[in-house]
C-alpha cells in the first residue's frame, strides 16, 4: 500500500517537473543575444518578433502571437512564415471558443465557459461571504442592543417592583405605570421573570403583595398560556411560573405531564405539583411509571427544604411497584428521620432488588435502629458482597455488644480484606469491650490479624 503511494507520488512529481521544464523553457528561455542592444538590425528585430510570436502561439495566447507576427511581417513584408502564421491565427481567432476541458486550454482573451463559471463561482463566494459577514455583524449588534434594552428594562422593573412592595400604602400611580409597561408581550415576559426572582427571595406579606400584583396585571393568563403551549420548553416555563406564584389553574395539565416522556418537562411538572398541591404534594409518586431519576429526586428534596413544605409519611411508598420511588422514600425516611417506618422497612430486607435491600440497610445504620441488628445478622450470609459490606458498616454505625461475636466471626471467616477491615472498625467502635477484643485478637497466635487490626487501630487513619 505504502509502496503504491510512494510510486504514485513519484509519478506525480515527475509529471510536474516535466511540465515545469516544458513551460519554463518556452517562457523563460533567453534569446540568443541581448535584447537591450540599442542598435538592433532589422534582421534581429525580425527574429525576436518571430521568437516571441512562436512562444505566444504555443501558449495559445493568439492575439499576442498575432501582434508579434504582424510586427515581423512589417519588418520583412516578403517573408513567408509570418504571413502564414498570421493567416493561421486570424482563422483561429474567428473560430468558436475552445472548451477543451481535458487539456485545460484557456483563451484569456475570450474566456470560455469554464473561465466564466470560475469567475462566477468566485464572485458568488465573495458576495456570499460579504453578505454572511454583514448579516452576522448586524445580528450580533442587534442582539447586543436587545440585551442592553432588556437589562435596562430589568433594572427599571426591579426598582419599580421593590418600590411597590415596600411602600407604606398602595401607590396607584405606580401600579398604573407598571400596568402601562405590561402592555407588550416582551415587557410582560421580563416583568414575570423579575417577579419570579423576587418570589424566590421573599416570604410573608411582601410575597402576598407580589402575588396580588401578578394577578392584577393578569400575568397569570400569560403563564397559563405557556403551560398549555405545545412546545415543551414553553410549557415547562409556564409550570414553573405557576408553581412559584402558587396559581392552581393549570393543575390538570401539570398532572398530565407527570408521566411525560420528556425528562425536563416531567421534572418541572413534579416540582410544580409538589408546590401547588399542599394536601397531596407527593401524590404523583402514587402513579409514577417512569424511573424517578436521582436528579428529579434531588430537585424534589430541594423543593421540600427550600419551601419548608409539610412532610408526608414516606412509609406509604415503600411498597410501590416503582423501585426508584421506593429508593427515594427510603432516602427521605433517612434524611427526615421517620423512624416510625421501621416495620415497613423490615420487609424490604427481603426485596428482590439488591439496591433496595442495600438502601434499607443503610437507612437502618443512619437511623441507628438497633432492633434491626438481628435481622441484618440473619440476612448476611445470603447477601451480595456489596450488601455484606453495607451490613458490617451499618453495624459499625450502631455499635452494640451483642454483635461482637458475629463481627469476630466475619473477621475470622471472611477472606476479603475490605470486609475484615469493616468488621474490625465496627468492633473498634464498640467502646472498651471492642478495644479489648481487638487487642486480644492482635496478640492471638490463632490467626495473623495483625496488619488489619493495626491498620484499624492506627489513629492517623480515620
Amino acid at each position, binding site marked *: 500500500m505504502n509502496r503504491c503511494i510512494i510510486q504514485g507520488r513519484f509519478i506525480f512529481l515527475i509529471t510536474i517537473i516535466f511540465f515545469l521544464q516544458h513551460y519554463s523553457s518556452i517562457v523563460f528561455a533567453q534569446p540568443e543575444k541581448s535584447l537591450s542592444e540599442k542598435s538592433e538590425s532589422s534582421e534581429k528585430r525580425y527574429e525576436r518578433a518571430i521568437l516571441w510570436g512562436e512562444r505566444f502561439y504555443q501558449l495559445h495566447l493568439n492575439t499576442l502571437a498575432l501582434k508579434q507576427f504582424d510586427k515581423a511581417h512589417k519588418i520583412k513584408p516578403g517573408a513567408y512564415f509570418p504571413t502564414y502564421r498570421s493567416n493561421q491565427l486570424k482563422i483561429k481567432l474567428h473560430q468558436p471558443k475552445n472548451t477543451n476541458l481535458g487539456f485545460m486550454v484557456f483563451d484569456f482573451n475570450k474566456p470560455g465557459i469554464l473561465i466564466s463559471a470560475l469567475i462566477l463561482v468566485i464572485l458568488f463566494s465573495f458576495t456570499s461571504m460579504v453578505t454572511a459577514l454583514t448579516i452576522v455583524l448586524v445580528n450580533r449588534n442587534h442582539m447586543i442592543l436587545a440585551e442592553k434594552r432588556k437589562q435596562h428594562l430589568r433594572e427599571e422593573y*426591579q426598582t419599580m417592583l*421593590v418600590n411597590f412592595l415596600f411602600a407604606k400604602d398602595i401607590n396607584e400611580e405606580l401600579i398604573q405605570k407598571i400596568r402601562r409597561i405590561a402592555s407588550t408581550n416582551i415587557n410582560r415576559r421580563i416583568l414575570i421573570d423579575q417577579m419570579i426572582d423576587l418570589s424566590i*427571595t421573599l*416570604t*410573608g406579606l411582601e410575597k402576598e403583595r407580589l402575588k396580588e400584583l401578578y394577578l392584577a396585571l393578569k400575568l397569570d393568563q400569560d403563564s397559563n398560556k405557556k403551560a398549555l403551549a405545545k412546545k415543551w420548553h414553553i410549557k415547562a416555563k409556564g409550570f414553573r411560573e405557576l408553581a412559584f406564584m402558587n396559581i392552581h389553574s393549570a393543575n390538570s395539565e401539570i398532572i398530565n405531564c407527570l408521566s411525560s416522556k420528556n425528562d425536563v418537562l416531567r421534572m418541572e411538572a413534579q416540582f410544580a405539583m409538589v408546590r401547588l398541591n399542599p394536601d397531596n404534594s407527593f401524590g404523583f409518586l402514587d402513579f409514577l411509571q417512569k424511573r424517578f431519576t436521582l436528579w428529579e429526586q434531588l430537585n424534589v428534596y*430541594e423543593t421540600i427544604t*427550600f419551601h419548608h413544605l409539610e412532610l408526608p409519611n414516606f412509609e406509604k411508598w415503600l411498597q410501590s411497584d416503582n423501585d426508584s420511588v421506593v429508593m427515594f422514600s427510603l432516602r427521605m425516611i433517612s434524611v427526615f428521620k421517620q423512624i416510625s417506618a421501621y416495620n415497613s422497612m423490615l420487609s424490604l430486607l427481603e426485596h428482590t432488588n439488591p439496591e433496595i435491600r442495600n438502601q434499607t440497610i443503610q437507612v437502618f445504620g443512619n437511623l441507628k435502629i438497633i432492633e434491626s441488628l438481628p435481622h441484618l445478622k440473619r440476612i448476611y450470609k445470603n447477601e451480595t458482597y456489596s450488601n455484606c459490606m453495607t451490613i458490617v458498616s451499618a453495624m459499625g454505625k450502631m455499635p452494640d455488644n451483642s454483635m461482637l461475636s458475629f463481627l469476630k466471626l466475619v473477621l475470622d471467616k471472611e477472606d476479603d480484606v475490605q470486609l475484615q477491615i469493616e468488621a474490625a472498625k465496627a468492633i473498634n467502635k464498640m467502646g472498651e469491650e471492642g478495644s479489648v477484643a481487638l487487642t486480644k485478637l492482635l496478640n492471638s497466635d490463632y490467626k495473623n490479624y495483625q496488619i488489619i487490626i493495626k491498620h484499624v487501630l492506627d489513629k492517623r487513619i480515620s
Partner: protein
Amino acid sequence: MKILVCEDDTMTLKALEHRLKKEGYTVITAADGKKAAEILSTDTDIDLLLTDLHMPMLGGLELISLVRSNFKSNLPIIMLTRVGLEETVLHAFELGADDYITKPFNPDELALRIKRLLIKNKV
C-alpha cells in the same frame, strides 16, 4: 446607622436596600465580597454587615474571616444563606458570624434581627 449589604443577586440586593432604607438605615451595597472588603477597608463607620454566603470573587465565608482578622473584630455580621446548608452555617459561626437568615426570607424578620443585633452590639 450604616449597614453594608453584600449580595450578588441584583433583585435581592435591591429588595434588601429598599427594606433597610425604609427602616431608616444608611445602606451601602456591594455586588461581591471583594467590593465589600474594599468598602470595609475605607469606611470605618459601618455598623453591621449583611452578607450572602455564595458570591463571586470573594465568598461570604472568606469575607467573614477577612473582617474578623483584618478590619473590625466586633462588627455584627448576619449571613444570608439557603436552606439545607447547615454545615456551612456552622462553619460561618466558627469564623465569627453573629446570626443568619435563610432565603426566602421575611423582610420584617430580617429587620428585627438587625435591630436586635445592633442594640446588643451597642450595649
